[in-house]
């Protein structure tokens, strides 16, 4: 399989890249921090192509897409890259919001649109959008982050219908907290890292779901139950999120 992963240098993207390489697939790993990708364990390097992309910039995305011209099409694409901004809505600077919209919303929309439009996706291929469990629970303390992740899920739902004609399937994944440096930076003080899922385990679950036929996937029992709760009692779920996160926030991180 030929696979594209955005945000491959750290966290979930890194775990997905390593797992796919272990399984012997060809991976195009795209990230802004290509140095970190160079450190990939040697045993994995065989089929890994590293590509620089700055998802804040439309030109950079365009250059990435141009580099795919004339190459074999992708069988699996993970639109995984994402950034966050936590804190009180009105205390986060507006520049951070522009960045969130660019990286979390514009980049995956533009990439998905062009990958299909320029016929860079193979037959029976799949695009995986990584959203967030905040889609089901709300996320006071990261309102715009939650907004962009909801937007991503909304686009994925529509794209799933529109891309059917082009024989491209779409999966949306709603991961709960993952034990990554990213989560550590944005979680309120005193939250336990041991309660978050290891990225390696998350990557395995997501890859298994990507091979199946489902259109949406909540990885792990906890996320699944949280999603059920969030759908049945949305108001209460968001209020509990406020208690657990927003009320404990000290300052903002972006």
């Amino acid at each position, binding site marked *: 399989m030929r696979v594209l992963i955005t945000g491959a240098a750290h966290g979930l993207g890194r775990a997905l890249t390593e797992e796919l390489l272990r399984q012997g697939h060809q991976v195009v790993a795209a990230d802004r921090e290509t140095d970190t990708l160079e450190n990939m364990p040697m045993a994995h390097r065989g089929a890994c192509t590293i590509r620089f992309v700055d998802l804040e910039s439309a030109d950079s995305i365009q250059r990435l897409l141009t580099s795919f011209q004339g190459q074999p099409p992708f069988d699996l694409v993970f639109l995984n890259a994402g950034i966050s901004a936590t804190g009180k809505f*009105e205390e986060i600077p*507006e520049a951070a*919001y522009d960045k969130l919209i660019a990286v979390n919303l514009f980049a995956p*929309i533009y990439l998905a649109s062009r990958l299909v439009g320029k016929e860079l996706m193979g037959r029976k291929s799949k695009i995986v959008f990584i959203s967030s469990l905040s889609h089901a629970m709300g996320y006071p303390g990261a309102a715009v982050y*939650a907004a962009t992740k*909801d*937007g991503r899920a909304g686009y994925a739902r529509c794209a*799933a*219908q529109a891309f059917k004609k082009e024989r491209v399937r779409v999966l949306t994944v709603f991961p709960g907290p993952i034990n990554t440096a990213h989560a550590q930076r944005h979680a309120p003080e005193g939250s336990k890292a041991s309660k978050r899922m290891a990225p390696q385990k998350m990557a395995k679950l997501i890859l298994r779901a990507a091979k199946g036929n489902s259109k949406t996937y909540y990885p792990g029992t906890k996320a699944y139950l949280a999603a059920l709760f969030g759908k049945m009692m949305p108001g209460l779920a968001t209020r509990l999120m*406020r208690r657990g996160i927003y009320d404990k926030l000290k300052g903002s991180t972006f």
Partner: protein
Amino acid sequence: MAKKNARPHTVLVTGATDGIGLLLARAYARRGHHVLATGRRGIANDEEFFKSPNVTYVMADQSDPRHAAATILAIMQDMGWAQLDLAILNGATAWTGPPYDEPINTIGEQLKVNIAAPIHLTLALAPMLFAAKGRLVMVGSTSVGKAQGQFATYVATKAALDGLCRSLREEWRGRANVMIVHPGPTRTRMHAKAGLNIPILRLFFMSPKKVTRAIQVAIRRGNDGRKMITRFACFMARFSWAGKGQL
């Protein structure tokens, strides 16, 4: 109870040059409130209305979100508004067609007008809304829960607004009332502007007047953070009445 809040309120309506925005601006002006109407297309649709004494129009193009927010804030300060009782962020734009054919410019424009501009405006207006314990109302779309292959980016922006309101309503609880109304397909010019022209389907769309009234009722009640403006909601709105000076 009905007269508790009877005083002229300060009301902001974005995207007020046409469609639901124009009807909302007219409705609040008719009740005697001070209305600041914004848009990017000029006042040609109803010049007489925009020149009424309690209505101010300012051109603010949301495809430049920061500039639009700064313009609106500046004009409020010029008018001496110390607080804002009601902000209706209604302005939006759409494009229809298969997502893999969508031009990069329209993706960018929809993200700017439909989601970045409301975020920048909300940031700018926050202190004035807190001062009044006011209401912040976003206008979404019933398409947020559906798969609309022809409106992918538009739905993405409206889903993002929906998520923003859900979290922000909880963050601002006790300081300001945040809500989102989701109107169903309405017989406005929006579809034609988005490049979709299906005359027969329009017969099934809701009347803009009724939708506007249902939105007003939802705003006045303010107890539902996420209100679907369905035909049923439009029907029920007939039985809600408000006097002069009320929202």
